[in-house]
Structure formats: C-alpha cells, structure tokens
C-alpha cells in the first residue's frame, strides 16, 4: 500500500500538525468565510422608513445586516456602544447627548456623522412625509447635531434608559445615508445604504435579498460571513423542508409551528434557538361598560383561565404563560406580582355574587389563530357561568375600536422593548390614548411617574412590581402568554445572539 511507504516519523509529524490545527481551531472559534441562506416568513417591502412606515421582523433582520444603530444590547440586555461611543444625559433625563464613533463611512463612501443622525430622525418626523414611523418617535421632539461627532436628542418625557430604547434595528433607529436617500428618492426603498457589516448586492423584490461582506467595516475583523441571502419562504412546512433539504441554513419560526420545532429539537443536525423577551399577549377590559365596571366580574374571568391547558391546545405547550406584563426577558423580576390564581370555583362564586347574568362580546382578529384563542376563552368562561360572544374583526379595526373605546374586551400586545416605561406609562396612566381600560387610579399614576424618573433599577423594579400587583388585583388587563421567538438553524451555524424583540441578527454569526 502506498501509505506503508511513508516513514513512521512523517506520519507522526502529520498527526501532530493535525492536532495543532484542531487545537488552534478551538482557540479561535470564529471562522471567516462562507455564505448562509436565511428563510424568513415575510416579503420585505423595502427599507426606507418613510415608505414602509414600520419594519416587521423580516425587515428588522435585513436592517441589522445593512445598518448600524447608535447603540446595541449586550447579552445582559444593557446598552453598549455601536455607532455612538459614549453618552450623557441631563438631570431630568430629557436630553441625551451621544458622542459618535469617528471615521465611519456609509457604503456609498459618504461620512457618517451627527448631521446624518439628525437628518434621519427629522426626515421621519417631517409631517410632509406622512410616515407612520413618526408615531413611534413622537416623544423625541428634536435631534440636533452640535458638531460632527456630537448629537443631542431632546425628549418630551424623561427616558432613563434612552440608549437601550434606540438599540434595536426597528424602523426608527438604523442610520441611513442621507446622500443616498436624497439622490435616489423613490428608488431608495429597494437600494438602501447604511454603515453596516454587509452591503446590498442585489434585491429581487419578493424573492431574495443578497448581501455581501463590507470589507471596510469599522469593526475590524467583522463580520465573519462573506455573504448572507435572505429569502421569504411564507409557508411554514416548506420553510422547514428547505432547512432539511439543505437549501436554508436558518429559518424563522414561531410557536404555532410547534410540530416542526419539536422535530428539530430531536435532530442533532439542527439547533432550535428561542428567546423569551419582555412583554406579553394581553387583553384589556373596558371598565366603564357593564359588566366590567364591577371588579368581581373581571377577577372571575381572569381566575377562570387555565393558561397551561390553553398553551397545550393552541401551541402544543410551547407558549409560556404570563402572570405579569414584564416577562422573562425583562430586567423587572417580581417576587410577588400579585397574579390571581386559577380557581374556577372561586370564579363561579364571584359571578354569583355579582348577581346579574354575565354576557359580553370580545373582539377577535379574523385569523385562524385569533379564532382559536377566542374559542378557548369562550370555553373557559362558559365553565364559570359567563357567556362570551366572539366578534371577529380585521386587525386594523381592533386598533381603531380600541382607540375609540368601542369594545368590552379586546386583545392587545405589549411588545418587547428594553425598558418597560414607554408602554406601561402609555397603557395605564390616566388620560393616555392607549389606556384602554378607561381606568384611573391616583396611586397607579404616582407609581408610573416615579418609575419613569428614577434611574436606580432596584427602586424601579419595586415600582413596577407594585404596579403589577395593583393591576392584577383590579384585573383591568390580563396577560396570557409571554413573547417567545423561535429560529431553527443548522447546528454548524454559531454565534447567534439573543433574539431581542424577535429580531434574528445573523450579522456576527459564523459557520463551523
């Protein structure tokens, strides 16, 4: 045999070289090169904020690759520098000053600077642009460039955690090239230009977005991958099949696709990534209309909920029950959140004490998921003597009806944000347009005001837990399941960070 002719010493040397190579491989785990294909649920309609108005998770994923934000969240959820190197705030937390990273260039070669940041935000706020994105930054009154590398955010309300709020690549936060936006006009939407780790190579609307490594990226040595291809694969079964067939390296998923998630967990070639963020799926009672002006009725309906069973029926047990509005991913952890127990006997008794028949209508989104959830609730409540009628409406009608308070009970959502203040204040402070329960309580208002102007997280946690106890006791809203996000990848794809806000950020991943 050929191999027998090699001297033994030679073989030993080869073996040693192999071992060194393996050890070196484990020491520097991140490997350069390679290309991945990602299967998303939705088509990305474009990335110009004033055109698309809001980014869904698919667009956010593309934005994480093409753009940078001023800050980013580390593994513990704390804001750390990205395009901004440092920041300071005024005593009232209404003015935030960011010092920017020097020497960063957009993909079109123009310089990134404070003027670019101000231009981006003010363009979104410009009333002539009719951008729905303006709604999300209505609390930002003005952004101004003090000098090339200093930008100041003037806020309407205090924000003790502003750097964390501007971290996710949601519609408002990525910084686009002002030159490109002005030059391309309508065409900018499908030809976005950022400072991010990847550069747009080609975009076939409805089919694929091809991104290539930015060789001039300011963060030297990053990214590791040469190419990322994003493809919308709307059908869940086909998306999973594309992963099994080896056409995709990572696919978006959710708990309604429980069967495939379970299957992937048993497959060693695949890895299931999941992250439970903050926030939850929630429902709001209108406390100004019968029968919900009576706290006993509200409490009874909440005590009739068997969340684990509900989760089993709808998502094969994947959905995680929520007993407060904060969730596992939030820094707010309560020893006692005041959750009402599941107690159908007590619920029946409360309804009997109320003395009148409990019959009402609940808004439900006209989707299979909406209907399934509505039917489960109907059964739970029937068992304690309450009669709920499902009223199916279109998604946008829910919002319109909720704003106009023309509902008795409506579904809602608390989305995954780095700080609870924005949504808690809006949802529960007296007089806010989304304080859907029509409920006013000076004690609750005081706690919310205190929490938003206090920097100390322990004190804020106390406030928020007291808020949770109060809301749970009064049962003006109830929480059903936490926001949990899923992605399935080939096991050789490494380095996927936590999916904050459900965003799958593959910008710093590598292939093993």
């Amino acid at each position, binding site marked *: 045999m050929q191999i027998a002719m090699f001297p033994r010493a030679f073989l030993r040397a080869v073996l040693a070289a192999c071992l060194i190579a393996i050890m070196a491989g484990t020491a520097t785990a991140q490997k350069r090169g390679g290309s991945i294909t990602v299967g998303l649920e939705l088509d990305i*309609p474009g990335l110009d904020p004033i055109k698309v108005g809001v980014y869904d998770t698919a667009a956010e994923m593309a934005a994480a690759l093409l753009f940078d934000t001023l800050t980013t969240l580390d593994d513990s959820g704390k804001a750390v520098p990205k395009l901004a190197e440092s920041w300071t705030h005024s005593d009232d937390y209404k003015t935030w000053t960011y010092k920017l990273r020097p020497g960063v260039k957009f993909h079109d070669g123009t310089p990134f600077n404070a003027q670019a940041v101000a231009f981006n935000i003010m363009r979104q706020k410009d009333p002539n642009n*009719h951008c*729905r994105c303006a709604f999300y930054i209505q609390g930002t009154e003005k952004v101004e460039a003090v000098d090339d590398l200093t930008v100041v955010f003037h806020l309407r309300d205090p924000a003790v955690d502003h750097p964390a709020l501007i971290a996710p690549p949601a519609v408002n936060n990525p910084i686009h090239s002002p030159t490109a936006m002005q030059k391309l006009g309508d065409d900018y939407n499908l030809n976005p230009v950022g400072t991010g780790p990847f550069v747009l190579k080609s975009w076939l609307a*409805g089919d694929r977005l091809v991104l290539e490594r930015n060789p001039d990226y300011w963060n030297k040595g990053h990214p590791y991958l040469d190419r990322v291809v994003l493809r919308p*694969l*709307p059908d869940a*079964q086909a998306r999973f099949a594309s992963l099994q067939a080896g056409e995709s390296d990572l696919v978006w998923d959710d708990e309604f696709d429980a069967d495939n998630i379970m299957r992937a967990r048993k497959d060693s070639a695949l890895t299931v990534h999941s992250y439970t963020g903050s926030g939850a799926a929630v429902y709001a009672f209108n406390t100004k209309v019968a029968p919900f002006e009576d706290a006993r009725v509200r409490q009874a309906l909440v005590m009739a909920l068997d969340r684990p069973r509900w989760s089993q029926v709808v998502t094969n047990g994947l959905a995680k029950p929520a007993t407060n509005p904060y969730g596992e991913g939030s820094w707010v952890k309560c020893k006692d959140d005041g959750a009402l127990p599941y107690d159908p006997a007590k619920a029946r008794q409360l309804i009997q004490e109320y003395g009148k028949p409990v019959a009402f209508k609940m808004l439900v989104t006209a989707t299979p998921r909406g209907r399934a959830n509505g039917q489960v609730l109907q059964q739970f409540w029937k068992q304690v003597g309450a009669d709920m009628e499902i009223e199916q409406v279109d*998604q946008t*009608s829910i919002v319109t009806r909720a704003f106009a308070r023309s509902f008795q009970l409506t579904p809602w959502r608390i989305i995954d944000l780095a700080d609870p203040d924005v949504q808690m204040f809006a949802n529960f402070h007296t007089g806010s347009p989304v304080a859907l329960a029509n409920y006013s309580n000076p004690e609750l208002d005081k706690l919310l005001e205190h929490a938003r102007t206090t920097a100390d997280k322990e004190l804020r946690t106390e406030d928020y837990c007291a808020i949770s106890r109060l809301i749970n006791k009064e049962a003006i809203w109830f929480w059903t399941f936490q926001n949990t996000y899923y992605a399935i990848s080939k096991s050789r794809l490494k380095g996927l960070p936590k999916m904050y806000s459900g965003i799958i950020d593959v910008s710093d991943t590598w292939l093993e």
Partner: protein
Amino acid sequence: MLGYVGRRLLHLFPVLLAVTLLTFLIASLLPGDLAVAILGDQATPEKVAALRGQMGLDQPVAWRYLHWLGDVIHGELGRSFRTGETVLATIGARLPVSLELMIMAELAGLLIGVPLGILCAVRQGGSLDRLLTGSAFGMLSVPAFLWAILLIYLFAVELHLLPATGWVPFEEDALGNLKSFVLPALTLALGEWPVLMRVLRSDMIATLQEDYIAMAKAKGLRPARILLVHALKPSSLTLVTVSGINIGRLIGGAIIVETIFALPGIGRLLVGAIYTRDFIILQGVVLFVAVGFVLLNFAVDMLYAVLDPRIRHGRA
C-alpha cells in the same frame, strides 16, 4: 372571419368596462382605509382626515372611479405606497415567473392528460379506462397544497433531486431555473390532467362514432393516423376551452403553489399586497388578472374559429 373577430371585439368592451368597475368597487369596499394604511393604525383622526382630503378619498365613489378609470386608460395604475414602485413595473417584474409556471403546468397537464384521454377513449369501458378515470377522480380530490408538501418531502427532503423552494433567475442559471419550476408545475399539473383527460375522453368517444371515422377505417388508414389526425382536432373543442380557462385561472390563481414554493410571481404579489394593505398594488393586480382572463377567453374564442370552420362562418 374578420366579421367574427370584429363582433367578438365589440363584445369585449362592455366586459372590460364591467371588469374595471367591479375591481374598483371590490377594492373600495374592502375594510380598511388607504390613508390609515399609509399613516399607520395609531395615527390621529385629524391626520387621517387631512391625508384623505389630499388623496381625494373623501370624494364620492363615482367620482373616484371615473378619475381612476381615466388614469387606467392612460396606462397609469399608480404606485405602491410601500415600495414606491409603479404597479406596472411591479407586475412586470413578477409576470415572467407566473407565466413560466403557467406554461409549464399547462404543458405538463396536457402531456399527461391528452395521451391518457385518447387511450381511455379507444379502450372505452376497458379495465385501463376504468382504472384511469377512477384515479383521475381521486387525483382531482386532492388539494394542491397537499401535493406540494408530498412532492417536496419526496423529491427534495428524501431524494435531494430538486429544490424544495425558491426560484433561480433564468439568466443566472438556466438549468437551475427549470429545476425550480418542476415541482410547482407538477403540483398544478396533478390537478389539471384529470380534467383534461376526462373532457378529451368523452369528446373523443363521440367523435369515434362519427361516420367519417368508420369511413377512414374502411379506407384502411392506420389507427394512429385516424386518432391523431382525423379524430383529435374535432374532439379538442372542449379541451381548448378548459385549457384556456385553466390558463386564465393560473395567471393569478397559483397563489397557494407560489406561496408554498416561494416563487416570486403574481399570486405571491397579491397575497403580499393583502397582508400589507397595499391597496394600490392589490387593485392593480386584480385588474391585471381580470383583464388577462378576459383577453385569454377572447383568444380561446378565436382558436375555436380556427378549429371549427362552422364557427368562423357564423353557422354554428
């Protein structure tokens, strides 16, 4: 012949006008408001009202329809407020995918359906005929999404022969492009051939009982020649109609298959427009598909005249 074409063309105008009216009415009857879709559902009522005024949405429906019809006649279908692209450019980018899928599916359907239809007609009542008509009925009852998933599982996941999803531009990789259409086209064809086979079979059985076929047999012509030259053409009128309607259906009707296989065609465009409330695109695509359907039916009518001289001479 010209008279026939002229008469059909005259019929076309009221139909097309009705199509535009229906398209417009359907789009304006949909729940939701264009201004709300643009500004977002959390916009203040004042802002929505202002934009509605600016876009003319507060005008009466009749006024808006005439305005829109004027634009349509000038080839101006508007722009998507989400992507900024014109409706025509968007449709133009997606159309080749749907057309290719449609042609491949129809060809595959005919390739399976026509030979089997002839075979069944010749062996009418035989065990092969009974087996094929029976299984055709079974095939018809299986919905396309099930075929799609089964085919993906077999050919992509298990055998690794064909891609599970996706589409490759023809100019990038011609073979890859064809491969990416095999499973979607087959999925559609599996629901198509039974219909084609059955209509051809029954027409063919009738034709084969005509005197001139007996005459041809008596003249000693070869059976293959009788079937393909003398019997097929007069038996294919219903086949042509059904194929025409099917093609029309496939222009926009391949929604499920395009979604499952992630093909960027017209069907996916339509679904996407519904999800994102892109009313302008939605209206444009519906109009395009409806007009396409009408024109295809017109083409089928013309084909009748070619196949059957009695029609073009107005004696039918």
